[in-house]
């Protein structure tokens, strides 16, 4: 939706215009559905969550700061909804609220990582993603599907800003392990410069 048209539609939607809501919904529902599909275990969950998210968006539209991108705000609402759902289900296998473990110092051999990246197909990545613990999966979806910043991810997952990098890196490690069926062999010990 072009900028000017979007601003106009949004303004009408804020006044409760059903037609404008319909337009917003039709424009953004597919992306939100895909987001949920990536973050949640089943298709049914994703369908339900999508509807719920748009109900929330309708309720909270007053809180949207128009100077920031609408999609970013939309994904934030979506992330909160999905994360809440997972938390309610208690299927988060990793730490609930505790701090992230210190990263095990297993550094990949760059050559081997390169080969893994070249050889893996998108399909393999997606099916591996489905087997990750909820937080790792969610972190990757927030970063690489919703394009969220570290601040936004920290907010959505309820971790400290400083740990977002650790969460993301751990998630990548877990993903690699799932894809290869084992950890990437460590290269020679690395120190920090």
């Amino acid at each position: 939706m072009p900028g000017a048209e979007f601003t106009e539609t949004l303004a009408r939607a804020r006044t409760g215009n059903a037609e404008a809501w319909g337009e917003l919904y039709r424009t953004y529902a597919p992306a939100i559905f895909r987001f949920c599909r990536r973050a949640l275990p089943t298709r049914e969950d994703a369908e339900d969550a999508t509807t719920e998210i748009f109900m929330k968006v309708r309720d909270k539209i007053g809180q949207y700061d128009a100077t920031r991108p609408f999609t970013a705000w939309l994904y934030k609402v979506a992330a909160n909804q999905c994360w809440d759902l997972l938390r309610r289900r208690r299927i988060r296998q990793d730490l609930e609220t505790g701090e992230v473990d210190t990263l095990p110092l297993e550094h990949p051999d760059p050559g081997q990582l390169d080969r893994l990246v070249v050889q893996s197909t998108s399909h393999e990545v997606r099916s591996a993603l489905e087997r990750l613990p909820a937080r790792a999966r969610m972190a990757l979806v927030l970063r690489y599907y919703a394009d969220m910043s570290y601040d936004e991810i920290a907010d959505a997952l309820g971790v400290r800003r400083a740990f977002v990098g650790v969460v993301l890196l751990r998630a990548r490690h877990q993903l690699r392990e799932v894809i290869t069926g084992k950890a990437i062999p460590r290269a020679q010990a690395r120190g920090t410069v």
Partner: protein
Amino acid sequence: MNHYDEMTCLLYLDGQLDRARARELSEHVDTCGECRQLLHALEGESRLLRAALSEEEESVPAHLLEYTPEGARREAVPLAWVSALGLAGAGAYSLWAWFVEPVTQQLNQAGFGSDSLLAMLFFGGVFWKGWDTMFDLTELLAAATLMTLAVVFLRRSWRRTSTLAVVLGALVCVLAMPPAVSAAEIRRANNVVVAADEVIKNDLIVYADTVKIEGTVEGDAILFGRNHTINGRVTGDVLAFGYLVRINGQVDGNVRTFSSFLSLNGTVAKNVSTFSQSFEFETKSQVLGSLTMMAAMATVDGRVTRDLIAMASENRVDGNIGGTALIAGDKITIGPSTEIQGKVKITSGRQPNISEKAKLHAGPPEIKIEKRRPDYGDPRYYWRQTLRWGAAFVLGLVIALLLPGFLRETVREGDRYALSLGVGVLALIVTPIAAALVCLTIVGLAVGITGLIFYLVALYSSQIFAGAFLGEKLLGRSKGVGGVLARLAVGLLVIRVLMMLPTWGGLAIQLAVVVFGLGAMTLTIFKRLQPEAPQPLPTAAPAAL
């Protein structure tokens, strides 16, 4: 040479390092091949992740793309729940009053006993008794396979716990059945004859085109085939599935038959129950227990020591009944040789023909003429319809809460009217035939009976799906539970009202509802059995919405 660690490299790529540190790293990378390679690999991984996550391998459900203002609004849940609870209460009551109570009463009368609901449902254990001997490893495997399939197909939409609960429940039911005790004697041949001087000291299971028992079976006789004749003696029960069953000898246990034609010309020491097209109970024969039968044409000329329950479209009674007689049918004749000790209740479409010479010791029969046309003037008629509506709603409630995904998908399948109706007709006709055929093989008996039970449940449930579909068409789509239930209630109400149309109108509606619902259900199940075929379609990144 020292290297940068992976974390720092990732932070660098994501623009999270402060300026000084980023410059430091960038200078290091210019001279260090290994760190450069790691950065490159990490960047490649980011690209791979973005590409993989933004690819669409499945389409967005059509109903999500339609925006309905009602659908997005929060539902008036309390009202929906209050009405749901009310209807549920009415439904539970009516289920009890109309189905469970009369059935238990009648079964008790017929000598089936009702130790438990399960036992009652399966003919007081007689069925299971037959199973005992047949329940061997193959059947256990068949049952286990069924359960596994059930888990596999249902797990997609059910929460893990509820799936497990259902499957474990079913497993407990299966295991609760007594295990095989004695190995029965099993005979398979074209013609099986138990000669006059032969004594089988065991249960006998026969698969044969023609079975003739001239000798003695000291146990149960379970017969599958076309023609069965028992001229000798069976000390246990007789369970016979076949086209023609003739019992001329003596049976010390119960007789249960499913046959096209049954002729009883001997002595049965316990009860007889039969589903047959034509049933002849000859003059000199006797049943020392009760006789329960459902047939198209029946002649009861023999002697029954206890009660008689006879349901047949053409029903002629001319024998001696020691207990009460419950006779239902379209054309009922009570002949001159009839002698009935207990009360006589007759339910018929027209006035029964009762001979003046018939001896009815407990007074004149209680005759109820069932009108074909519903009595629209009677308020009780409407009350009954309301309760039936409630009963259907209770089932709908259970389905909506346990299988919300299945309900939704089935309702969506309903949009393909013609396909649903076509598949429905097919399922309506083919399923019972297939199940009956499967029943004829011993391994398949468990599967076949399970299939038939599912079929009956599906027939009744079809109105739920048709109702939910109709409700949605009338009120628009809804996502909330309350909204779905409200639409279901409205849809079922409309169907119920339409079914009240006189004579053919109501029946036609009923048939249409069953066919439509069954078709949509079959389509959904069929769809779920198909493996999901991912079709990767690269598209623009979602960030560019």
